[in-house]
């Protein structure tokens, strides 16, 4: 049994390394979501009156809508290419738990869209007038929220991977499911900026993340298997 576990760890590691290497070779595509997030959050201060109070009011919405949309940008490609060149079939038939391997691919999506976004968030939040004391709270919320967004989004990407044109369908599938993440994430961010305790929305956000990490792999495997037929 432990031999199987070691084999799975090796395979998942190789899969993550392969996808990161591919992402590195197409750095233009890879940087798009981050660039999108930076530009969207930077446009708000330009479009609004330069009043700090106004900026602080819209900062949570700007950060979270930006995060949601930039996570959606890279989603379309998550499984599509692997489905087209047969790599996904090889993955399904290698004898290792398919859910786990797809979860590893989802982890790559987070590493390439979620993590850079969390790292750049202090800058974006400051540009939107958030005080320095609010940064840790905002980072915690974004860290939890982007993980949930990647997991929810991956299920949508799995369902639509075999369709020829799925851009808007993917958004229609994923965005409603991501609404709870948006609500609690933005609430936590607003409380952090106001300097109030933000434990309650943060806990709910963590609950959503744990729930999606528990359920998404199975939904994802089922969706991808349908797409492979």
């Amino acid at each position, binding site marked *: 049994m432990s031999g199987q576990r070691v*084999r799975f760890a*090796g*395979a998942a*590691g*190789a*899969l993550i*390394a*392969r996808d990161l*290497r*591919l992402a590195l*070779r*197409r750095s233009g595509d890879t940087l798009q979501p981050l660039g999108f997030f930076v530009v969207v959050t930077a446009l708000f201060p330009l479009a609004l009156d330069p009043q700090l109070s106004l900026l602080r009011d819209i900062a949570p919405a700007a950060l979270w809508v930006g995060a949601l949309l930039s996570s959606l940008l890279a989603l379309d490609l998550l499984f599509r290419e692997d489905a*087209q*060149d*047969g*790599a996904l*079939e*090889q*993955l*399904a*038939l*290698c*004898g*290792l738990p398919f859910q786990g391997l797809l979860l590893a691919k989802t982890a790559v999506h987070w590493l390439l869209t979620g993590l850079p976004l969390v790292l750049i968030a202090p800058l974006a939040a400051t540009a939107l007038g958030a005080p320095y004391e609010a940064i840790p709270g905002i980072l915690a919320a974004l860290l939890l929220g982007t993980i949930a967004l990647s997991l929810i989004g991956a299920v949508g990407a799995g369902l639509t991977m075999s369709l020829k044109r799925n851009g808007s369908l993917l958004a229609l599938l994923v965005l409603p499911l991501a609404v709870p993440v948006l609500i609690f994430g933005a609430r936590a961010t607003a409380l952090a900026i106001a300097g109030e305790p933000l434990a309650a929305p943060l806990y709910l956000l963590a609950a959503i993340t744990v729930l999606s990490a528990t359920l998404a792999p199975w939904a994802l495997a089922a969706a991808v*298997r349908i797409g*492979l*037929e």
Partner: protein
Amino acid sequence: MDELTADNLQLWRGEQHVLRGICLAVAGGQCLQVTGANGAGKTTLLRALCGLVPLEHGRDIVDDPATFHGELNYLGHDNGLKADLTAAENLRYAAALRRRVQARDIAAALARTGVAEAAGQLLRRLSAGQRRRVALARLALTGGALWVLDEPGSNLDERGQALLVELIDGHLRSGGAAVVATHRTLDLPAAQLQSLTLQ
């Protein structure tokens, strides 16, 4: 490995009855050659045997993925190789999914299928036939008791076809089994070869 058996396999695709009562049994050391006109359902049968297409009726041993899938090596129409990785990187990844191999095993597998010089080249720079040879190198490298090959000779030149038969022959000699969908008759000893023609 055990025998791969299927009894009265049925498969519908919407209104279309694709597989009608297919029976087959392939033991270790044997190769089942599946022939049939275009659209006869060869690919569907192979994918059904792999468990990629769910079956509505019929019994086979494929329904136990835990014991069987690790021993299954499938090569479909698509090679399952990444265009933006080199041949060696592709093989290293494929091997990591199954078992530990040394760098020299990878080089040896590529040399065996005649694409040694492609090891450091991106797959997208190779021709379709060379890419097929890299996929065959993966097959030789990762092994497995049951090979399921869908038109493995597509895009291959005459020497490539001979190499393919040689690979399958070596696999059968070591006790493995193979199911091969093909338009060309495989040049294997009659004792090892079974034939199934789909209508």
